[in-house]
């Protein structure tokens, strides 16, 4: 026994420090290393997708075509969406899950470390494949990220590349989701029952089930596109007896839960940050869990609201309208709970809290426009206009992206052991919060006044708001450079962070019981949770 024990000790010592060089990253099985790679990858994709958005806003600055031809414009809108959704937002949440789920539940690592390595390393290949379509004959995908046939099948060489890239992203997401579920279900520290588990882990647990449920559906849809294109099937080809609308049904059965995949982890993050800087426990924690689960369930029965204008029986229109409106109820409960958490608290406004508060206001605006879009008759006027663009950017940018930034600013000192430059981070916040509204608020007006989405050029009466929106876009894009600067500075050095990091506030959870930076191996012995 003594011999075995000595052996184990030696083993631990050997692995206490990461191996040096590229092998540390290529063969990474440590959840912290893999989390870091996910987050860095996501940040790079955020800038790649963002630069495409800059091309779009530059072309739309004034009427007439000045910079790009309509075909390339369509490639930009399509690639911007694919990269931001699958390359920036989703990997950022997986990276946060990798870092924080084991730390929050007191586990030494993720349950399946080699699969974890695999699910990350698929992504650079998937996005190399996707981005290389920009250089093949016929160019990149230009039929919208929704890939509706028959349009997408008119594409050139990108078609198989797009489809395989989507398959790879899906496989990566499914493996990431399996890992989160297995880790949470099996590796919680003794005493941490599910109701004691932090809300971030809860929201990720539910998100992981959504991912496992819908990513195979997307894989099925794009596989049918593949066989339609190359093997003579007619799933979606009307001339062969197929049904183009069926693709829309299958796609949105994936697509709507996908929307919640991108926002539920954000809800979890906000539920961690607001109590910390309000110095008060989260209000209605159990109802938060029920609300998240209800949203997840409802997300499976609302997909038809993306397709009202495609022609639908009256009964289906009524069903999808009402199920969609119902989502407002649990979402409302969450917003009320966050507000009640701040109520009679003791608030301070460090960068994570600033982003969380902005999330509350601006995500709610996206929620309001969502409620308007749910009303079928009104949706007939809003659908496929800039009103929809404004709506989903409000929930995705000051929603999901602000939550990711809040999370980074919240846990960065725990990851690096250094405090970051607070002034610079606050400057980043204020510039982002102002420009994001200059960018997206006028798009409500454009849509209501009748500007369709996905057009490279527009009638002159839309000029003014487009200019305002473009100025906001450039400002928002440039402000994000500050984000990268703050992170790089913090990784390189800075005032040492304590294990609690947020002294004076009330951060709650196991991640604050270990030193900062979190040791390479944490919780090798399970902590006791009372």
């Amino acid at each position, binding site marked *: 026994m003594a011999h075995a024990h000595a052996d184990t000790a030696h083993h631990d010592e050997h692995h206490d420090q990461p191996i040096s060089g590229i092998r540390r990253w290529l063969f990474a099985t440590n959840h912290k290393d893999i989390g870091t790679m996910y987050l860095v990858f996501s940040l790079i994709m955020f800038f790649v997708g963002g630069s495409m958005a800059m091309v779009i806003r530059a072309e739309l600055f*004034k009427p007439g075509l000045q910079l790009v031809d309509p075909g390339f414009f369509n490639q930009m809108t399509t690639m911007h969406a694919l990269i931001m959704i699958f390359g920036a937002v989703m990997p950022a949440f997986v990276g946060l899950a990798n870092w924080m789920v084991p730390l929050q539940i007191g586990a030494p690592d993720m349950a399946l470390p080699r699969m974890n390595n695999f699910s990350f390393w698929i992504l650079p290949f998937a996005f190399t494949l996707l981005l290389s379509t920009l250089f093949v004959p016929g160019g990149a995908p230009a039929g919208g990220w929704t890939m509706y046939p028959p349009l997408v099948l008119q594409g050139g060489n990108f078609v198989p590349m797009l489809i395989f890239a989507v398959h790879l992203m899906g496989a990566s997401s499914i493996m990431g989701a399996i890992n989160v579920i297995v880790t949470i279900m099996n590796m919680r520290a003794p005493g941490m029952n599910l109701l004691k588990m932090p809300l971030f882990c809860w929201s990720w647990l539910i998100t992981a089930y959504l991912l496992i449920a819908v990513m195979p559906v997307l894989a099925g849809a794009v596989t049918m596109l593949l066989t339609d294109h190359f093997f003579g099937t007619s799933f979606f080809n009307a001339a062969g007896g197929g049904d*183009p609308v069926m693709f829309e049904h299958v796609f949105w059965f994936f697509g709507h839960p996908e929307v919640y995949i991108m926002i539920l982890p954000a809800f979890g993050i906000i539920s961690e940050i607001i109590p910390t800087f309000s110095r008060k426990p989260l209000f209605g924690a159990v109802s938060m869990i029920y609300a998240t689960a209800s949203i997840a369930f409802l997300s499976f029965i609302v997909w038809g609201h993306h397709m009202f204008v495609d022609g639908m029986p009256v009964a289906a229109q009524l069903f999808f309208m009402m199920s969609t409106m119902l989502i407002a109820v649990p979402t409302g409960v969450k917003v009320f709970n966050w*507000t009640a958490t701040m*109520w009679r608290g003791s608030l301070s406004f460090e960068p994570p809290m600033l982003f969380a508060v902005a999330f509350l206001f601006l995500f709610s*605006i996206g929620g309001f426009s969502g409620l308007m879009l749910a009303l079928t008759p009104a949706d007939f006027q809003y659908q496929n206009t800039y009103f929809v663009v404004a709506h989903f950017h409000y929930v995705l940018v000051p929603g999901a992206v602000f939550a990711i930034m809040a999370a980074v600013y919240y846990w960065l000192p725990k990851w690096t052991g250094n405090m970051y430059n607070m002034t610079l981070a606050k400057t980043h916040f204020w510039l982002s919060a102002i420009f994001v509204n200059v960018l997206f608020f006028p798009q409500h007006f454009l849509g209501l006044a009748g500007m*369709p989405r996905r057009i490279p050029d527009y009638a002159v009466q839309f000029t003014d708001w487009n200019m*305002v929106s473009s100025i906001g876009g450039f400002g928002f894009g440039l402000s994000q450079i500050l984000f990268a600067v703050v992170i790089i500075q913090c990784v390189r050095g800075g005032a040492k962070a304590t294990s609690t990091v947020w002294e004076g506030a009330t951060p709650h959870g196991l991640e604050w019981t270990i030193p900062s930076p979190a040791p390479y191996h944490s919780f090798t012995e399970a902590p006791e949770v009372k």
Partner: protein
Amino acid sequence: MRVTPVRLLSSLASLAFAGTAGANTSNGYNLPPGVTDISQAIYGLHMEIFWVCVGIAVVVFGAMIYSLVMFRHSKGAVPDTTMVHSTKVEIVWTIIPVLILVAMAVPAAEIILKMEDTRNSELTVRVTGYQWKWQYQYMDQAEGIGFFSTLKQDSNFARQLNSGVDPSTVPNYLLDVDHPLVVPSGTKVRILLTSQDVIHAWWVPDFGVKRSAIPGFVNELWFKVEPGKEGIYRGQCVALCGRDHGFMPVVVDVRTPDDFKKWVEEQKAALKQAAAPAAAAPATAQVVDVKPAG
């Protein structure tokens, strides 16, 4: 268009009073009330839900702002850590939204039923989407008339990459066609909508109608423009349909029933003339079965 800071500022200042273009009834930042019962009902619903949202926002944002101002750590606020849960409050703020939603769903459902009632139409037009133009084929009293409707030449010239033409000098830039759809006012017009290639969508904001044109499907929609609201109404394709998606406008010329009758007779006469062996150059109307080039 030349962009100067002064121009931008002055246009920003004047936005609240933005004028309308043509017969379109949008004020530049809101939905058009439009010229049909349906479009006006939708506008009413839209404003209703908008004010409901504003009301909720005032209450919720009010509570948030109050917290941000009053409960600041820097002002020595002491947190009330016992406030963690209240079943009563939670039930109340679940029930109230449900009631608001039901109150909104009822009028919305009424409008849906009205929109979908395509019975008793007085004129039917088959509308077919192509990359990138619309084809209109009349039935009923105008049977035989049919033509393609494509972006007007001056817009098409100005919209080319670096054309050197200032779009603001082109009348109805991107919103004008060679042959608009001509329909009578005060008449229930039914549109049968389909597509020959990819999915398009036909939209006239002022009529409150928007539907996808899908290959292999025929979608039905209808509108009835109030008498006295004759004029030119403009919209666009609203489903990404490829390279020139932004350049296939929908233009509807609404005339009085008498003027429409006159127009139908003219078109039929032109058709007869075109069909005659020694016909002169064809007029605006084309034979129904003309296939588009390419």
